[in-house]
């Protein structure tokens, strides 16, 4: 029988965790603003309501991260990411662009899970990550892809998905 590890991970975010979670909050705020821009431009078609809900999900994620790290939360979006994705979210390829963004967020959060020390922050990131993976699958359908013919677009994060700063 394997002995239990005697080193118990900390519950609360460490100083290093706070920095990492702060960056994650800025990403969530950028995602929120990108979806809001798409909704404002009325680019969601019959799935306009779903895009509005996804914007709300990213807003809630940013708020929960803020609650986890308190006064050190940046409360500002990552402008670099926003600027990079903005034209896609306000153009004809909104669903595919959003699909790519969600895959990048999932890849980023998975990397984050391997670095966070505190269990509370890890649990929060996991609960955000799994919904963003579901966003990606839903957006693949909105983009007109087929879960049979384009299965990988639905069921896996691309190995080359960009990890966002």
């Amino acid at each position: 029988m394997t002995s239990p590890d005697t080193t118990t991970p900390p519950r609360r975010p460490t100083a290093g965790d706070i920095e990492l979670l702060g960056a994650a909050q800025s990403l969530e705020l950028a995602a929120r603003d990108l979806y809001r821009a798409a909704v404002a431009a009325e680019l969601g078609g019959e799935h306009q309501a779903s895009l509005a809900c996804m914007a709300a999900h990213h807003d809630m994620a940013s708020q929960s991260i803020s609650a986890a790290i308190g006064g050190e939360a940046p409360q500002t979006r990552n402008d670099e990411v926003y600027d990079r994705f903005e034209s896609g979210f306000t153009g004809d390829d909104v669903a595919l662009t959003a699909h790519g963004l969600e895959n990048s967020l999932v890849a980023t959060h998975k990397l984050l899970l391997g670095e966070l020390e505190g269990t509370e922050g890890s649990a929060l990131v996991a609960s955000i990550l799994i919904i963003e993976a579901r966003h990606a699958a839903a957006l693949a359908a909105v983009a007109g892809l087929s879960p049979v013919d384009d299965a990988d677009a639905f069921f896996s994060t691309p190995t080359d998905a960009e990890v966002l700063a």
Partner: protein
Amino acid sequence: MNHDPIDVRRAALSRRRFLIAGGASVSLGALLAACGGGGSSTGIPRIGLTPDPTELPDAPVTDVALLRTASSLEYNAIFAYETAAGLGVLTGDAKSLAGRFLDDHKRHADTIVAATEAAGGNPWTEPNPRLQSIYVEPALALIAESDDQLGDVLALAYALETLAGATYQSFVPLFDDKALRAAAMGNGEEEGRHAATLGLVLNPSRLVTSTGLSIADEFAETETATFYAVPSAFGTLSPVPVTLGPADENGARTTVNLETPSLNSLVYEYFDEE
């Protein structure tokens, strides 16, 4: 009601006598116990013989126990998909999707088995015995009698995939090894994608629920549905209900509540010694 003061006093006396008699009985019992033989006296007076308590096994929630539980759930899913395939109700795209999901669960099981070995544990390569007996087998038995086997298979798959994703999510804060947290969610996010796609199939008109969200009225739902590609803002660990099987004489069908593994459902390392 009788409020005669004499009757009330008699009742009080009766209670007093009862207490006295009871005290005498306890004292007599203690005396008998003290006089009794027995080589393993604990010094605590007792009446009769009691069996020696069975010592509980050592069952720490280690990373290895969590990994074995994770692989056990993958084998639950493999069993469910293989059984569903045997019903012959999955055709066309539904059959293709189920085949993809089955392959993914086999791959996930392999990765977890490898991680268990890397962590110094003995891998678990069978369905979780408890979840199999309380969820999977009863659910499949209901489907076997169902009037809508295809609908029920899809509903069960949605619930099982949601449960599998939630299980990985629930294990993240329990793992001591940070690398295992990320690896677990590598599988967990794919289970979430499976569930989302089944949600798309079961409810294509509304992909994301507005329940609990602060959004403009024009985007809010007037009625909620059972299935969504994205059912909440965060991955939840709450029970996943699934309604299956034939209706009874009142038109009611059976709802099975699937829950993430509790401490009683983990595949501890001491199982190997039994």
